[in-house]
Protein backbone atom coordinates (compact mmCIF):
# COMPACT_ATOMS: atom_id res chain seq x y z
CA UNK A 1 0.00 0.00 0.00
CA UNK A 2 2.82 2.37 0.92
CA UNK A 3 4.60 1.73 -2.41
CA UNK A 4 1.36 2.35 -4.31
CA UNK A 5 0.99 5.74 -2.60
CA UNK A 6 4.57 6.60 -3.52
CA UNK A 7 3.96 5.67 -7.17
CA UNK A 8 0.82 7.82 -7.22
CA UNK A 9 2.65 10.80 -5.73
CA UNK A 10 5.48 10.39 -8.25
CA UNK A 11 2.94 10.23 -11.08
CA UNK A 12 1.35 13.51 -10.00
CA UNK A 13 4.72 15.21 -9.60
CA UNK A 14 5.84 14.16 -13.10
CA UNK A 15 2.59 15.03 -14.84
CA UNK A 16 2.53 18.46 -13.19
CA UNK A 17 5.37 19.70 -15.37
CA UNK A 18 4.10 18.23 -18.65
CA UNK A 19 0.33 18.45 -18.63
CA UNK A 20 -1.90 21.40 -17.98
CA UNK A 21 -3.79 20.76 -14.75
CA UNK A 22 -7.18 22.43 -14.69
CA UNK A 23 -6.57 24.08 -11.39
CA UNK A 24 -7.72 27.31 -9.83
CA UNK A 25 -6.79 28.83 -6.53
CA UNK A 26 -9.09 31.06 -4.49
CA UNK A 27 -8.40 33.59 -1.77
CA UNK A 28 -10.99 35.70 -0.02
CA UNK A 29 -13.24 36.26 2.94
CA UNK A 30 -16.51 34.89 4.23
CA UNK A 31 -19.18 36.38 6.45
CA UNK A 32 -21.66 34.60 8.67
CA UNK A 33 -23.40 35.16 11.99
CA UNK A 34 -22.95 32.41 14.57
CA UNK A 35 -24.14 32.64 18.14
CA UNK A 36 -21.27 31.65 20.42
CA UNK A 37 -23.19 31.60 23.68
CA UNK A 38 -20.41 29.81 25.52
CA UNK A 39 -18.10 32.80 24.98
CA UNK A 40 -20.71 35.57 25.24
CA UNK A 41 -21.81 34.51 28.73
CA UNK A 42 -18.40 35.09 30.28
CA UNK A 43 -16.81 38.55 30.35
CA UNK A 44 -13.33 37.00 30.62
CA UNK A 45 -13.43 36.12 26.91
CA UNK A 46 -12.79 38.73 24.22
CA UNK A 47 -15.84 40.87 23.50
CA UNK A 48 -17.66 39.95 20.35
CA UNK A 49 -17.03 42.05 17.29
CA UNK A 50 -17.15 41.65 13.54
CA UNK A 51 -13.59 40.39 13.19
CA UNK A 52 -13.69 37.61 15.76
CA UNK A 53 -17.26 36.48 15.19
CA UNK A 54 -18.49 37.22 11.71
CA UNK A 55 -15.39 37.30 9.53
CA UNK A 56 -13.88 34.17 8.01
CA UNK A 57 -10.61 33.88 6.13
CA UNK A 58 -10.99 31.72 3.03
CA UNK A 59 -8.70 29.89 0.70
CA UNK A 60 -9.51 27.08 -1.70
CA UNK A 61 -8.31 24.93 -4.55
CA UNK A 62 -10.54 23.64 -7.33
CA UNK A 63 -10.01 21.18 -10.15
CA UNK A 64 -12.18 21.18 -13.25
CA UNK A 65 -12.86 17.52 -13.91
CA UNK A 66 -15.73 17.91 -16.35
CA UNK A 67 -16.90 20.51 -18.87
CA UNK A 68 -19.07 22.35 -16.37
CA UNK A 69 -17.98 20.92 -13.03
CA UNK A 70 -15.28 21.38 -10.46
CA UNK A 71 -14.36 19.65 -7.24
CA UNK A 72 -12.06 20.98 -4.64
CA UNK A 73 -11.40 21.93 -1.10
CA UNK A 74 -12.10 25.24 0.56
CA UNK A 75 -11.38 26.30 4.12
CA UNK A 76 -12.99 29.11 6.09
CA UNK A 77 -11.42 30.00 9.42
CA UNK A 78 -12.52 32.15 12.31
CA UNK A 79 -9.87 33.15 14.82
CA UNK A 80 -10.08 34.80 18.21
CA UNK A 81 -7.43 35.25 20.87
CA UNK A 82 -6.72 37.19 24.01
CA UNK A 83 -3.75 37.22 26.34
CA UNK A 84 -4.26 37.19 30.09
CA UNK A 85 -7.86 36.05 30.55
CA UNK A 86 -8.72 35.64 34.20
CA UNK A 87 -9.78 32.33 35.69
CA UNK A 88 -11.56 31.57 38.94
CA UNK A 89 -8.39 30.18 40.50
CA UNK A 90 -6.83 33.67 40.18
CA UNK A 91 -4.60 32.57 37.27
CA UNK A 92 -4.21 34.31 33.95
CA UNK A 93 -3.83 32.36 30.72
CA UNK A 94 -3.42 33.18 27.03
CA UNK A 95 -6.45 32.01 25.09
CA UNK A 96 -6.81 31.20 21.38
CA UNK A 97 -9.91 29.90 19.65
CA UNK A 98 -10.14 28.73 16.05
CA UNK A 99 -13.18 27.45 14.18
CA UNK A 100 -12.32 25.86 10.85
CA UNK A 101 -14.93 24.88 8.27
CA UNK A 102 -13.48 22.58 5.61
CA UNK A 103 -15.71 22.37 2.57
CA UNK A 104 -15.35 19.64 -0.05
CA UNK A 105 -17.46 21.22 -2.78
CA UNK A 106 -18.84 19.80 -5.96
CA UNK A 107 -19.49 22.84 -8.12
CA UNK A 108 -21.24 23.05 -11.46
CA UNK A 109 -21.26 26.20 -13.52
CA UNK A 110 -22.11 27.76 -16.82
CA UNK A 111 -21.12 30.93 -18.61
CA UNK A 112 -24.13 33.16 -18.89
CA UNK A 113 -22.05 35.75 -20.75
CA UNK A 114 -18.40 35.58 -21.90
CA UNK A 115 -17.28 37.26 -18.68
CA UNK A 116 -20.04 36.12 -16.33
CA UNK A 117 -20.39 32.70 -14.79
CA UNK A 118 -23.08 31.32 -12.52
CA UNK A 119 -22.02 28.46 -10.28
CA UNK A 120 -23.85 26.04 -8.01
CA UNK A 121 -22.14 24.34 -5.09
CA UNK A 122 -23.04 21.43 -2.86
CA UNK A 123 -20.57 20.68 -0.12
CA UNK A 124 -20.11 18.30 2.76
CA UNK A 125 -18.42 20.05 5.66
CA UNK A 126 -15.83 18.83 8.10
CA UNK A 127 -15.82 21.29 10.94
CA UNK A 128 -13.15 21.54 13.56
CA UNK A 129 -12.67 23.82 16.52
CA UNK A 130 -9.55 24.19 18.65
CA UNK A 131 -9.23 26.07 21.91
CA UNK A 132 -5.68 26.37 23.20
CA UNK A 133 -4.40 27.84 26.42
CA UNK A 134 -0.89 28.90 27.36
CA UNK A 135 -0.67 28.28 31.08
CA UNK A 136 2.11 28.68 33.61
CA UNK A 137 3.68 25.62 35.18
CA UNK A 138 3.10 23.99 37.62
CA UNK A 139 -0.61 24.99 37.60
CA UNK A 140 -1.55 23.65 34.17
CA UNK A 141 -4.11 21.08 35.35
CA UNK A 142 -5.61 23.51 37.84
CA UNK A 143 -5.86 26.24 35.20
CA UNK A 144 -7.49 23.91 32.67
CA UNK A 145 -9.90 22.65 35.32
CA UNK A 146 -10.85 26.21 36.19
CA UNK A 147 -11.20 27.10 32.49
CA UNK A 148 -13.51 24.16 31.76
CA UNK A 149 -15.87 25.16 34.60
CA UNK A 150 -16.82 28.13 32.39
CA UNK A 151 -18.67 25.68 30.13
CA UNK A 152 -19.99 23.12 32.58
CA UNK A 153 -21.27 22.95 36.15
CA UNK A 154 -19.26 20.81 38.51
CA UNK A 155 -15.58 20.05 38.82
CA UNK A 156 -13.45 18.60 36.07
CA UNK A 157 -10.62 16.22 36.91
CA UNK A 158 -7.77 16.22 34.44
CA UNK A 159 -4.56 14.31 33.89
CA UNK A 160 -1.18 16.06 33.71
CA UNK A 161 -1.23 18.93 31.26
CA UNK A 162 1.51 20.70 29.34
CA UNK A 163 2.10 24.44 29.37
CA UNK A 164 0.53 24.59 25.91
CA UNK A 165 -2.39 22.27 25.37
CA UNK A 166 -5.51 22.35 23.28
CA UNK A 167 -9.02 20.99 23.38
CA UNK A 168 -10.43 19.88 20.06
CA UNK A 169 -13.76 18.91 18.58
CA UNK A 170 -14.82 17.75 15.13
CA UNK A 171 -18.21 17.65 13.51
CA UNK A 172 -19.81 17.13 10.13
CA UNK A 173 -22.30 19.16 8.21
CA UNK A 174 -23.45 20.15 4.76
CA UNK A 175 -24.04 23.29 2.81
CA UNK A 176 -25.13 24.74 -0.47
CA UNK A 177 -24.13 27.94 -2.27
CA UNK A 178 -25.08 29.90 -5.34
CA UNK A 179 -22.31 31.93 -6.93
CA UNK A 180 -21.74 34.73 -9.39
CA UNK A 181 -18.29 35.02 -10.97
CA UNK A 182 -17.01 37.93 -13.03
CA UNK A 183 -13.90 37.29 -15.11
CA UNK A 184 -11.41 40.16 -15.09
CA UNK A 185 -9.09 38.24 -17.42
CA UNK A 186 -9.34 34.71 -18.78
CA UNK A 187 -7.42 33.49 -15.71
CA UNK A 188 -8.55 35.84 -12.95
CA UNK A 189 -12.06 36.32 -11.60
CA UNK A 190 -13.98 37.77 -8.68
CA UNK A 191 -16.43 35.31 -7.18
CA UNK A 192 -19.36 36.13 -4.90
CA UNK A 193 -21.29 33.32 -3.26
CA UNK A 194 -24.33 33.14 -1.05
CA UNK A 195 -25.80 30.11 0.62
CA UNK A 196 -26.14 28.28 3.88
CA UNK A 197 -24.36 25.71 5.99
CA UNK A 198 -25.73 23.34 8.56
CA UNK A 199 -23.30 21.97 11.16
CA UNK A 200 -23.99 19.11 13.59
CA UNK A 201 -22.00 20.56 16.47
CA UNK A 202 -22.29 19.12 19.97
CA UNK A 203 -20.62 20.90 22.88
CA UNK A 204 -20.27 17.60 24.77
CA UNK A 205 -17.91 16.11 22.18
CA UNK A 206 -14.74 18.02 22.90
CA UNK A 207 -11.59 16.11 23.80
CA UNK A 208 -8.66 17.23 25.86
CA UNK A 209 -5.76 14.80 26.00
CA UNK A 210 -8.05 11.91 25.00
CA UNK A 211 -10.48 12.85 27.74
CA UNK A 212 -14.04 13.88 26.89
CA UNK A 213 -14.90 17.35 28.15
CA UNK A 214 -17.72 19.82 27.64
CA UNK A 215 -16.93 22.83 25.55
CA UNK A 216 -18.66 26.11 24.77
CA UNK A 217 -22.20 26.30 23.46
CA UNK A 218 -22.14 27.47 19.86
CA UNK A 219 -25.11 27.80 17.53
CA UNK A 220 -23.59 27.15 14.12
CA UNK A 221 -26.37 25.19 12.47
CA UNK A 222 -28.57 26.61 9.80
CA UNK A 223 -26.47 29.68 9.09
CA UNK A 224 -26.54 31.84 6.00
CA UNK A 225 -23.03 32.41 4.68
CA UNK A 226 -21.59 34.80 2.11
CA UNK A 227 -18.15 34.73 0.53
CA UNK A 228 -16.19 37.05 -1.72
CA UNK A 229 -12.96 35.87 -3.25
CA UNK A 230 -10.43 36.28 -5.98
CA UNK A 231 -9.89 33.25 -8.14
CA UNK A 232 -6.81 32.60 -10.28
CA UNK A 233 -6.90 29.80 -12.83
CA UNK A 234 -3.87 27.83 -13.76
CA UNK A 235 -5.82 26.12 -16.45
Amino acid sequence: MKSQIQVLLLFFLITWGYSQPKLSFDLGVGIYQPTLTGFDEDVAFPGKDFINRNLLGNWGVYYEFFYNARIGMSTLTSIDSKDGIGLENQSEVDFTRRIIYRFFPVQTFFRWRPRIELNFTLMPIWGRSVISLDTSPPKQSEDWGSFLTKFTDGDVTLKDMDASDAMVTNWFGYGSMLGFRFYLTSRMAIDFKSGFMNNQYDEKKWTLRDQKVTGPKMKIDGLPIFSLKLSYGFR
Partner: protein
Amino acid sequence: MEIQSNPCSHPLIKLARERGVKSIPIKDILKYRKLIKECENNGNPAVVEQILMMDWERDFKRSKTMASWTSTHAMFVMTTIGYYYMAKVLDIPYDVTFFPKDE
Protein backbone atom coordinates in the same frame (compact mmCIF):
# COMPACT_ATOMS: atom_id res chain seq x y z
CA MET B 1 24.40 38.48 -39.50
CA GLU B 2 21.56 38.90 -37.04
CA ILE B 3 18.43 36.97 -37.63
CA GLN B 4 15.45 38.83 -36.28
CA SER B 5 12.71 36.50 -35.24
CA ASN B 6 9.13 37.61 -35.27
CA PRO B 7 7.81 37.33 -31.68
CA CYS B 8 4.25 36.99 -33.02
CA SER B 9 5.16 33.67 -34.66
CA HIS B 10 6.72 32.15 -31.55
CA PRO B 11 5.30 28.67 -30.72
CA LEU B 12 3.87 29.96 -27.43
CA ILE B 13 1.87 32.64 -29.25
CA LYS B 14 0.65 30.02 -31.73
CA LEU B 15 -0.36 27.76 -28.83
CA ALA B 16 -2.30 30.60 -27.21
CA ARG B 17 -4.07 31.36 -30.49
CA GLU B 18 -5.00 27.73 -31.18
CA ARG B 19 -5.80 26.43 -27.70
CA GLY B 20 -6.24 29.49 -25.53
CA VAL B 21 -4.19 31.49 -23.05
CA LYS B 22 -4.78 28.96 -20.29
CA SER B 23 -3.02 26.25 -22.29
CA ILE B 24 0.30 28.04 -21.77
CA PRO B 25 2.33 25.97 -19.29
CA ILE B 26 2.73 27.62 -15.92
CA LYS B 27 6.51 27.66 -16.26
CA ASP B 28 6.22 29.66 -19.52
CA ILE B 29 3.73 32.33 -18.36
CA LEU B 30 6.36 35.03 -17.85
CA LYS B 31 7.98 34.24 -21.20
CA TYR B 32 4.55 34.39 -22.86
CA ARG B 33 3.82 37.81 -21.34
CA LYS B 34 7.16 39.10 -22.60
CA LEU B 35 6.45 37.76 -26.10
CA ILE B 36 3.00 39.38 -26.11
CA LYS B 37 4.54 42.76 -25.25
CA GLU B 38 7.20 42.34 -27.96
CA CYS B 39 4.52 41.35 -30.47
CA GLU B 40 2.47 44.46 -29.63
CA ASN B 41 5.53 46.70 -29.81
CA ASN B 42 6.46 45.22 -33.21
CA GLY B 43 3.35 46.79 -34.66
CA ASN B 44 1.02 43.80 -34.40
CA PRO B 45 -1.52 44.70 -31.72
CA ALA B 46 -4.23 43.04 -33.81
CA VAL B 47 -2.64 39.63 -33.17
CA VAL B 48 -2.80 40.15 -29.42
CA GLU B 49 -6.38 41.40 -29.57
CA GLN B 50 -7.33 38.41 -31.69
CA ILE B 51 -5.82 35.99 -29.16
CA LEU B 52 -7.74 37.60 -26.28
CA MET B 53 -11.01 37.74 -28.19
CA MET B 54 -10.73 34.11 -29.30
CA ASP B 55 -9.93 33.12 -25.74
CA TRP B 56 -13.10 34.67 -24.37
CA GLU B 57 -15.18 33.14 -27.17
CA ARG B 58 -13.62 29.71 -26.68
CA ASP B 59 -14.31 29.68 -22.92
CA PHE B 60 -17.81 31.00 -23.46
CA LYS B 61 -18.71 28.41 -26.10
CA ARG B 62 -17.27 25.59 -24.03
CA SER B 63 -19.25 26.43 -20.91
CA LYS B 64 -22.37 28.26 -22.03
CA THR B 65 -24.55 25.18 -21.70
CA MET B 66 -24.60 22.64 -18.93
CA ALA B 67 -23.73 19.14 -20.07
CA SER B 68 -25.06 15.84 -18.78
CA TRP B 69 -25.69 15.62 -15.02
CA THR B 70 -24.54 19.15 -14.21
CA SER B 71 -27.91 20.75 -14.84
CA THR B 72 -29.56 18.32 -12.40
CA HIS B 73 -26.96 19.22 -9.81
CA ALA B 74 -27.62 22.93 -10.36
CA MET B 75 -31.38 22.48 -9.97
CA PHE B 76 -30.81 20.57 -6.73
CA VAL B 77 -28.66 23.39 -5.38
CA MET B 78 -31.29 25.97 -6.32
CA THR B 79 -33.97 23.89 -4.61
CA THR B 80 -32.05 23.44 -1.35
CA ILE B 81 -31.10 27.10 -1.15
CA GLY B 82 -34.62 28.20 -2.04
CA TYR B 83 -36.09 25.88 0.59
CA TYR B 84 -33.64 27.11 3.22
CA TYR B 85 -34.33 30.80 2.67
CA MET B 86 -38.07 30.25 2.34
CA ALA B 87 -38.01 28.45 5.69
CA LYS B 88 -36.05 31.35 7.21
CA VAL B 89 -38.49 33.93 5.91
CA LEU B 90 -41.57 31.97 6.94
CA ASP B 91 -39.91 30.88 10.23
CA ILE B 92 -40.59 27.18 9.75
CA PRO B 93 -38.23 24.30 10.54
CA TYR B 94 -36.18 23.30 7.50
CA ASP B 95 -34.19 20.40 8.96
CA VAL B 96 -34.71 17.07 7.29
CA THR B 97 -34.88 14.36 9.95
CA PHE B 98 -34.72 10.86 8.57
CA PHE B 99 -34.88 9.07 11.92
CA PRO B 100 -36.88 11.17 14.42
CA LYS B 101 -36.02 10.57 18.04
CA ASP B 102 -38.75 9.14 20.25
CA GLU B 103 -39.97 11.77 22.67
